[in-house]
C-alpha cells in the first residue's frame, strides 16, 4: 500500500463515517437493539477481506487463517441479519 492509496482510503473512511452519523442520528429507542444487531451484521463485511486472503489457491498458513476468518465473519453476517429480522418481525402495531 502506498501513501497515496492510504490517503484516498482515509477520505472514503471519513466521509462514510459522516454519512453514518447523519443517517442513524435519529433512531427511536424502540429500535436501538435491532439497529445495533443490524449494524453488527454489516460489520461482518470483513468476510470480503477473508475471502480475498483465503482464496489464493495454495493451502498456506495465511489461507488457513483466512478460512477461519471466513467462518467467523459468515456467522456474524448470517446470524446477525437473521436475528435482526426475527426481532423486527415482533415489532408490530396492535392489530384491530
Amino acid at each position: 500500500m502506498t501513501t497515496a492509496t492510504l490517503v484516498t482510503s482515509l477520505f472514503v473512511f471519513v466521509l462514510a463515517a459522516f454519512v453514518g452519523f447523519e443517517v442513524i442520528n435519529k433512531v427511536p429507542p424502540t429500535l436501538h437493539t435491532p439497529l445495533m444487531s443490524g449494524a453488527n451484521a454489516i460489520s461482518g463485511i470483513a468476510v470480503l477481506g477473508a475471502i480475498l486472503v483465503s482464496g489464493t489457491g495454495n493451502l498456506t498458513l495465511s489461507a488457513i487463517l483466512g478460512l477461519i476468518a471466513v467462518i467467523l465473519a459468515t456467522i456474524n453476517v448470517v446470524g446477525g441479519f437473521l436475528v435482526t429480522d426475527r426481532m423486527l418481525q415482533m415489532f408490530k402495531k396492535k392489530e384491530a
Partner: protein
Amino acid sequence: MNWSEFLPTGIQLSYLVAASLFILGLKQLGSPSTARRGNQLAAVGMLLAVVATLLDRSVLSYGTIFLGMAIGAMIGAVAAYQVEMTAMPQMVGIFNGLGGGASALIAIAEFWRVLSTGEPLSLTSLIVIVLGILIGGVTLTGSFIAFGKLQGILPGSPIVFPLQQPLNVLLLGGFLVGSVYFMTDPNTLSVFFGLIAIALILGVFFVIPIGGGDMPVVISLLNSYSGLAAAAAGFVVNNNMLIIAGALVGASGIILTNIMCKGMNRSLTNVLFAGFGSDGGSSATAGSSGSAKANQTVRSVDPEEGAMMLKYARSVVIVPGYGMAVAQAQHSVKELVDQLESAGVEVRYAIHPVAGRMPGHMNVLLAEANVPYPQLYDMEDINPQFDKTDVALVIGANDVVNPAARHDNSSPIYGMPILEVDKAKSTIVIKRGMGTGFSGVQNELFFEDKTMMLFGSAKDMVGQLVAEVKQLA
C-alpha cells in the same frame, strides 16, 4: 472493453451499489414501519458484495471458501433461531467478537502472505496491519469477556485489582514501542506475536473492570469497534467496501454509546475506568446513606392487595427493568396488562434508556410478548405523566427509579435522569429483596409512605397478580 477489463470495474460498481444498499438499509432501520425492509436491503447488499468478491481474479480456490461459508452460515442461522430474546445482549456481544476476530485474522493473514512471498512491506502497510490487529484483537477478547459477564459465566460485578490502570498504560506503551520496532524490522516474528498477545490482553483488561449495569455502553462501544476493525481490515487489503461498511457501523456504534452515556449522565471515561458499583469508593457513600435509612420502615403488600390497587386504578404505568428480563416475566406482564385493560384501566409502559443490559433491551422483550410499541413511552414523554398516574408498577428496576438521583448530591447516581415514579399517587415495587441495585446505593423510593413492596421473583409475583386480578372480576 473485454471481459478481463470489465470484471474489476464491475466488481467496484457492485460494491458501490452494495454500499448504497447499506446506507438505505440503515436509514430504514431508523423507523419502525420500514425497519424490517431496511434490514433486508442491507442483507441484499451483503449478498451482492460477497458474490462480487468471489469473482475477484485473485480468488482462485472456491472449495474451501464455500465450505467455510457453509459452516459459518449454518452456525449463524441456528444461533439466530435458537437464541432466547432475553439472551440478546450476549448474542450481540459474541457476534461483535467474531467480527473483530475475523478482522484481526485478515490483518495477520495478509502480513503472513506478503512476508512469505518476500515482497517488501511498505510502512503504510505495516501501520494498517498493526492497527487491524489492535482493534480486532481488543474487540475479540473484550466481547468474549462481555459475553461471559452477561451469560453469568463471569461475575457481573466489576473486577478490579491494584495497579490496574498503570498496568494498562504499560501494556499500551509496550504495544506502541513494539509497533515502532516491528515497522523498522517486520521480520522479527517474536515482536509480531507479542503485539497480537498484547492486543488480546488489552481487550480483557478493558472489559473486566466494567460492571453489569454499564453493559449497554460496553456493548454499543464494542459494536462500534467491530465496525472500526472491519474498516481497518479494509485498509489492510485495500478494499473500499470494507472501509465504507466499517465506517457506517463505527458511526452507529458511537451514536448509541453516546445515547447510553447520556441516559446515565456519565461520561464515557467514567463508565470505562471508574469501576462503578464495585467495592471501591462508591460503596462507602452507599454504606452511609444506607445506614441512615436503615431504621426507616418499608411497607410490603401481598399480591391480593396489589391486584386490588391495580384493578381499581384509572391509570397504571409499568416500569420494567433488568429483573423482568432475568425472570423472563415479559409474557406474564403482558397478560397482567391485558387483564387490566379489559377492566378499563389505562396502561402504559415507561422505558428508561439504560434499562437492561443493552440499548433497547426492554423494547425487544416487550415486543416478543406482543406489546404494541405505541404503548411504550420514553422517559421524556412519560415523566410529566406520573403525577396524573394512580399506580406505578416497578418490575425489577432499581437505580433508574431512585429519587436520590434528583436531590442527593452525595449519591453516586446523582444527576442521572430517572423515571419519576415517586410522583405517582402510589407505587408498587416488585423485587426479590431489599438488596441494592447495580450502583450499590440503597433506593430511598422503597422507604416512602406511598411505596408498597411486593417481595418475590418478577415472574411469580406478576403471575400471582394476574390470578388475583382475575378473581376480582
